[in-house]
């Protein structure tokens, strides 16, 4: 921990970066994102297993970019999001300093985005056993029952878009949901719009989602919407091979293989 504080303070001291995006204690002593601009302020930085918010979401925000060049505290999920953002040309080399944290809590330094990518190739996205079981359970329901299951889960959603706001990859300045000529997705708090919103969200993240679960943690109702993403990650890796953010290869859904296999097209 001291290592992280020291490193962050020295970066600010040398004016290599103007802001450090990290975790600090907020109200009720719960971790929240903090933006440190002075070396002395780095004392507030913390990191433990409660720090689950994906800080990469701030990298594309105009308000944060205005603060100057950032350094970002980056555990695994944040590293994955950064690589995906680089792959989508949202970040370029030199835009930021990455203060990586490996799964054991050790500070990592990366010379380039490529270095992050190769680090991640040893830390692939693996869907946890409990989720695999849940997905399997849902897939085994009869089709009508499965629909009823999701209807019940999605009915209470009031489309606060916290899932979108928390997602580092939902950085479009104008989202499909705001497209109202014509009204593409009904915005009223109603099941049809809810279903279509979550289908749309899952589809627009297909092949890009890095499984950070930020959407789920942000949901005020605790709707397990990340199951949609997880199920897609599972199916996509079965259909199109190795899944995960990559700089050197094009995105899964913006590329194709002439030999893609399916069994349902006649």
């Amino acid at each position, binding site marked *: 921990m001291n290592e992280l504080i020291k490193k962050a303070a020295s970066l600010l001291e040398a004016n290599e970066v103007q802001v450090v995006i990290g975790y600090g204690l907020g109200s009720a002593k719960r971790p929240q994102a903090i933006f440190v601009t002075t070396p002395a302020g780095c004392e507030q930085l913390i990191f433990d297993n409660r720090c689950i918010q994906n800080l990469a979401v701030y990298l594309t925000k105009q308000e944060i970019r205005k603060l100057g060049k950032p350094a970002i505290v980056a555990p695994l999920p944040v590293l994955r999001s950064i690589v995906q953002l680089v792959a989508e040309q949202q970040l370029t080399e030199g835009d930021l300093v990455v203060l990586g944290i490996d799964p054991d809590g050790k500070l990592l330094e990366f010379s380039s985005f490529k270095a992050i990518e190769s680090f991640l190739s040893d830390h692939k996205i693996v869907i946890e056993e409990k989720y695999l079981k849940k997905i399997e359970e849902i897939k085994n329901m009869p089709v009508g029952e499965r629909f009823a299951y*999701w*209807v019940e889960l999605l009915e209470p959603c009031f489309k606060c878009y916290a899932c979108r706001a928390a997602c580092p990859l939902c950085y479009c300045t104008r989202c499909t949901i705001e497209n109202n000529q014509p009204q593409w997705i009904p915005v009223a708090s109603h099941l*049809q719009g809810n*279903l279509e919103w979550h289908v749309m969200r899952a589809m627009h993240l297909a092949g890009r989602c890095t499984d950070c679960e930020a959407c789920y943690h942000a949901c005020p109702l605790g709707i397990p919407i990340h199951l949609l993403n997880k199920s*897609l990650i599972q199916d996509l890796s079965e259909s199109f091979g190795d899944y995960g953010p990559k700089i050197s290869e094009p995105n899964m*859904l913006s590329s194709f293989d002439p030999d893609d296999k399916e069994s349902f*097209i006649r």
Partner: protein
Amino acid sequence: MSEFEPKIVAFVCNWCTYAGADLTGTSRIKYAQNVKIIRFPCTGRIDFMLLLKAFAEGADGIIVSGCHPNDCHYTSGNFHARRRWITFRSLLDFLGIDVRRIQFSWVSAAEGAKWAEIANTTVNNIRELGPYTDYAKVAVHLKKEAKV
């Protein structure tokens, strides 16, 4: 009770399947009249949301059809579409939306007979499955409000 007549919406590409369906007509091959064709520039242009809109509007079945792989007028539109369909179909299936009601196919401009066959078998399959109300029911409340 009169027999259930399914409503089928077909999203087809301009260059292959639409021309193929034209050939079905000029060849005087008869096929089920339940199919309403919507023409797109390319299968790559068919937004996945449109399929849901069709179900919301009361379609019982959907056909999505375009050029065979390697035949795309725009070189690769159908390859992109194929990846998207694989993804979308898996998502719909996971959500419990009945994917047996969506028939994907490749029909070239020379395959008038194949188009008739696809349309007929789809209509027959949907007739066996019965009306699709699960998804349309979800949209009912909004329609009532809109009418007031």
